[in-house]
């Protein structure tokens, strides 16, 4: 059983849920390991949603500080640490949208992006993460464009179905129907790859 005083190498051997037990007790080094493990995917989600590196950094920092301060709220029965983190980042990004009067494009890339891409994968977990990401991206890309579009606008854009209906000049029922069909197809693709329950 881990006790304070173990070094960072020991911490890196711990599962996320065990690290969160330490975070709950105020262990900053454990939190650092959690960030190192999930900061990349958190930043990637924020960057995808915000379209700006600076804004994504603000969202991720805000989210992780919030997680640090509320670590006692993590309940492993409700899902993985990663899901908990990504949910918080997603929420914070949407909150950020609401504070801003204008939204950025959803596929914006800036010149700083190249600096952010890791030079090489270094761990088995990172390799697995990249494989999973590739499979999810592929599954999403294989959706009919009209279904993919409404899902992306809702999830990454933070738009409601009403806003999407107005944007795309479609009946609300059509938008909801495309969301439903698209998610059902995605589930089929991801289940085949073992990525969803």
């Amino acid at each position, binding site marked *: 059983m881990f006790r304070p005083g173990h070094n960072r190498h020991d911490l890196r051997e711990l599962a996320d849920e065990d690290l969160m037990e330490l*975070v709950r007790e*105020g262990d*900053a080094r454990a*939190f*650092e390991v959690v*960030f190192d493990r999930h*900061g*990349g*995917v958190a*930043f*990637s*989600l924020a*960057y*995808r949603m915000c379209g700006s590196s600076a804004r994504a*950094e603000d969202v*991720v*920092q805000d989210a*992780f*500080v919030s997680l*640090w*301060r*509320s670590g006692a*709220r993590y309940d492993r*029965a*409700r*899902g993985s640490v990663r*899901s*908990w983190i990504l*949910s918080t*980042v*997603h929420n914070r990004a*949407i909150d950020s949208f609401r504070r801003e009067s204008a939204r950025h494009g959803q596929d914006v890339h800036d010149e700083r*992006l190249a*600096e*952010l*891409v*890791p030079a090489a994968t270094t761990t088995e977990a990172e390799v697995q*993460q*990249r494989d999973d*990401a590739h499979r*999810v*991206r592929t599954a*999403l890309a294989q959706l009919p464009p009209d279904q993919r579009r409404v*899902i992306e606008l*809702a*999830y*990454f854009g933070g*738009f409601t*179905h009403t806003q999407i209906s107005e944007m795309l000049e479609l009946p609300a029922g059509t938008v*909801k*129907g495309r*969301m*439903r069909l698209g*998610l*059902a197809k*995605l*589930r089929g693709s991801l289940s085949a790859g073992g*990525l*969803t*329950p």
Partner: protein
Amino acid sequence: MSERHGPVHDCGGDAAAYVLGALEPAEAEAFRGHLLECVVCRDEVETLAGVVQALPMSAPQHAAPRRLRRRLLRAIREQPPSRAATAGRPASRRRLRPATLLGAAAGAAAAVAAAVLIALGGGPGATLSRVIRASVSGVSGSVQLRISAEHGELVARHLSAPPPGHVYEVWLKPAGSGPRPASVLFTVNRDGFADVSIPASLRGITAVMVTPEPAGGSPVPTHAPVIVASVA
């Protein structure tokens, strides 16, 4: 099979928009109410929520910038974690957020009157840090009372929401007299989660009670406790 009552709902029609967080706030609130009654929609939400949880992986993956890491670690070292969090937010304040959907569906089985009675040892023992687990009957969920120094924090998981138009109210019961208001009202979030700090000292208190009361609270408990937890 669906067990619906109230306005007819297009079962399944809103589940995808719900898990994507794309319903309007009022629609999401109505759908959450519908989920309490409809096993078809609960199943669909549970199924689709797993898909939505995978969506972040579809974003091109980047490393977190080093400056972000430095900034974050500096920030957390300046801010100790807080365990005295406020109560679970009312669901209507925010749009539906995907990661909480499974919990919302699982925790939506019943909405019943609830009360928690947690007996506390008086005297010097009340100043020790400890966690008291409440045994809950007649209401779904679990509740812990965490005591640090003389102050308490109620942590509820998967607790049924109070009945419509009601909130939970916390009461402190001193030895030999009736309960008095703790000036704490709360509800649970979509997962049935709440983390409630009790600002008053627990010294001399023999029980902490939580009862469902009309919105705004009551001067005296209007419901008998239906859940009781005693100190072992």
